[in-house]
């Protein structure tokens, strides 16, 4: 199964992991590695490499890394480690994306399938509602005396 690691500037990744446990009831083996304030990029890279190695069964083992922003130090460290390990790197992580990833990864999907799935529009969960008058959904409503 594909391993999942969350990385971020500060505690965002740990908080996200906590929220995952609250919503889904478990952590699906996901790990969180944060770059702490004042920490050198090299230090972070060592920590991240250790997290990758922890569940690294063989050279075919794939890891998906979710990062907070594209191009930051955590992101760059993950990209650098892709030289050595099979990594799929996704930035702009959020909880809907992580939930989709966790629900799907147990189904023995490949790294590429998973990356495509969790970055598709339906998995990102970004919705806007303005609660204006007349903004009604087209959903079918069941009435007491008639179902579909």
């Amino acid at each position, binding site marked *: 199964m594909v391993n999942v690691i969350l990385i971020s500037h500060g505690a965002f990744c740990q908080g996200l992991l906590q929220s995952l446990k609250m919503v889904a009831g478990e952590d699906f083996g996901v790990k969180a590695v944060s770059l702490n304030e004042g920490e050198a990029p090299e230090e972070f890279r060592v920590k991240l490499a250790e997290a990758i190695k922890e569940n690294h069964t063989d050279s075919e083992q794939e890891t998906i890394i979710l990062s907070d922003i594209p191009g930051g130090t955590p992101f760059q460290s993950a990209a650098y480690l892709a030289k050595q390990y099979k990594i799929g790197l996704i930035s702009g992580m959020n909880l809907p994306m992580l939930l989709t990833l966790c629900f799907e990864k147990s189904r023995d999907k490949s790294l590429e399938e998973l990356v495509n799935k969790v970055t598709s529009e339906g998995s990102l969960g970004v919705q806007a509602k303005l609660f204006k008058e007349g903004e009604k959904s087209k959903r079918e409503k069941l009435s007491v005396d008639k*179902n579909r």
Partner: protein
Amino acid sequence: MKNLVLTRIDDRLIHGQVMTAWIKNRGAEQVVIVDDDTANDEYMIEVLEMAVPEEIAIGIFTKEDGVRFFEQGLDAPTILLVKGPKVLNYLVDNGINIDEIDVGGMGARKDRTVLYKNISTNGEEKEQFNELLDKKVNVYIQVMPQDNPVSISEYLR
């Protein structure tokens, strides 16, 4: 009963992606909530409608209307969602055939103690579960589709 693909207790009712995962897992086409307070709260109904995928039909009924709805049979795969065990006893007592119940979420509250992991109950709710078990309803705890169901009976003692 036919087409009742999941009966679930979850005090968060429709819970975003958790519910979406169950809808997919069971191939449900409609979700029916039986809860008196919610059925009488138009605004809450609109909010709940936002939380389910658009292609899913939704019905939110009082317990009396719930009986009327279910006794006509179900034309499409349906998930029944309630907040606690009491209303399920009411439905069963009024002739609705429910074989099994998934306990998915009953959060901590002042009057509740932990039953199993994230599931908490008070004394009355435990009694209600025992009544369901006495009626030969299979009651199990399962938060997500990929979890193993755990029978509730041993935790009620």
